[in-house]
């Protein structure tokens, strides 16, 4: 009983779905014809891109400089600063600061990319605390 019902149901459903898809499929092919078909981003291979969220940061003299926890972009979408969390113990007493994106260097050491902030730990620790609700204070290297 139940199998026979399914046999009838399947073609009915297929026809119903075809009717729904047909007009949008026609629209889609029209749009595709306007643009030349091309694979997306052929120049970017997998090992050339890396996620930066949660990435460890080293200071100028190879000290532990914390971790990138957020990125800040301006209205044009350009990334301007990275929020770095550092210090504390067991997550207690950490500080967050926003560092100018240009003050970060990404250097490859064979397999992995190392993020180096062009500051010393002493410069990092006294930087004003980053507050999400207020304009971020961004430190530049030249200061």
């Amino acid at each position, binding site marked *: 009983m139940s199998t026979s019902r399914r046999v009838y149901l399947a073609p009915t459903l297929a026809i119903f779905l075809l009717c729904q898809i047909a007009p949008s499929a026609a629209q889609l092919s029209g749009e595709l014809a306007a643009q030349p078909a091309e694979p997306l981003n052929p120049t970017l291979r997998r090992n050339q891109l890396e996620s930066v969220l949660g990435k460890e940061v080293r200071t100028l003299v190879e000290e532990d400089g914390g971790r990138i926890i957020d990125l800040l972009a301006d209205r044009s979408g350009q990334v301007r600063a990275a929020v770095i969390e550092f210090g504390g113990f*067991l997550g207690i007493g950490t500080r967050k600061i926003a560092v100018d994106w240009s003050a970060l260097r990404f250097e490859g050491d064979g397999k992995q990319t190392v993020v180096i902030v062009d500051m010393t730990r002493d410069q990092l*620790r006294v930087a004003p605390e980053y507050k999400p609700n207020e304009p971020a204070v961004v430190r530049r290297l030249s200061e």
Partner: protein
Amino acid sequence: MRDWEAKEAAHASKAPSRASLRGLDWFTFFVADIQTGFGPFLSVYLTTQKWTQVDIGLVLAVGSFASLLGQVPGGWLVDWARSKQRAAALAVIGIGVSALLIALAPTFVTIVAAKLLHVGASSVLGPAIAAITLGLVGHAAVGPRLGRNARFAAIGNGLAAGVMGACGYFVSAQAVFFATAVLAVPTLLALWRIRESDVDPVRADGGISPCSASQQTATLGRLLRNPALLILAACVLLFHLANAAMLPLVGSDVTMRSSRWATALVAACIITPQLVVAAISPTVGQLAQSWGRRPLLLIGFGALPLRGALLAWTNDPYMIVAVQTIDGVSGAVLGVLVPLTLADISRGTGRFNLAQGIIGSATGIGATLSTIGAGYLADLFGSATAFAGLAASGLFAFVLLLAMMPETKPAAE
């Protein structure tokens, strides 16, 4: 002689076995160990797992909200459970499973589930330890025994903070949660050593056996109408309103002010108070028998505004570590005297664990508001003002205690 007094007298002759008392030592030690990773460290771990700040904040908020709601039902459940050990064992298993979930599958759904599991298990485990203690030794001897519990918990806290912190720093944040799951095994073994026959379930609830429904509501009313419970709850709320944000603020200050030794100094700020608690808790438990509860509570509550004022005054990172020893005095007093006072207040009602749940809620509300308030003050006026504000709340708690809190120690002892 009332009914529950007769029952207590009958049990007084039955001394718990050495194996059970040893088991309780190790149980309190390991419970402190398995709770360490679930604090602020969870957000460090989630950061390493590429979580966004929004998601981390959401999970933490869900956790603290659930914790506020869970304390009273947790305590009620421990009162209701016939075997306190079984309730504690399920809670420990829950914490172990939660740690495994966190380590193995840091997706949003699993972390929320693990967080809720941990919150539920903790709301049972906290009262269950005190219930097992009271059930083992009875009211007459519970003060010194709570002092001993606080010592072992403090050693567990201090050691776990050091070891887990080093593990997170040198190995990986994930390893901390694997270690937590593994440590659930010795926790259960220690619990196993406490003999079921040594823990009197009636005594563990604070007195009478639950008989009829009408009697139960009568004793519940008697507990809730006790002004001492409400005053203690208000004092504890204000205490944690002052206390909870202090250590994070201290740590952040030390991180800012010390270059080379920041990590070690923040660790010292966390571990030093635990050393003090381990050193003085048994004495606090003994003194509670001879001095009574009130003078000790006043010392513990008085130490907090003093600490806040000193922290507002000093900038030197080494001085800050020294001031943190005062936290050990408050820690020892609250760790011993709060459950002891609750045992006094709930005596004969059979609602000891519900009373603990109520105090647990007060703690949670105070701690949550503390973080929000201190963050606001520190943002606007700097950390010295935040410390002063926290000290003011602590002073208010002290004054309320001084003015209103009665001595709860029974006259006969």
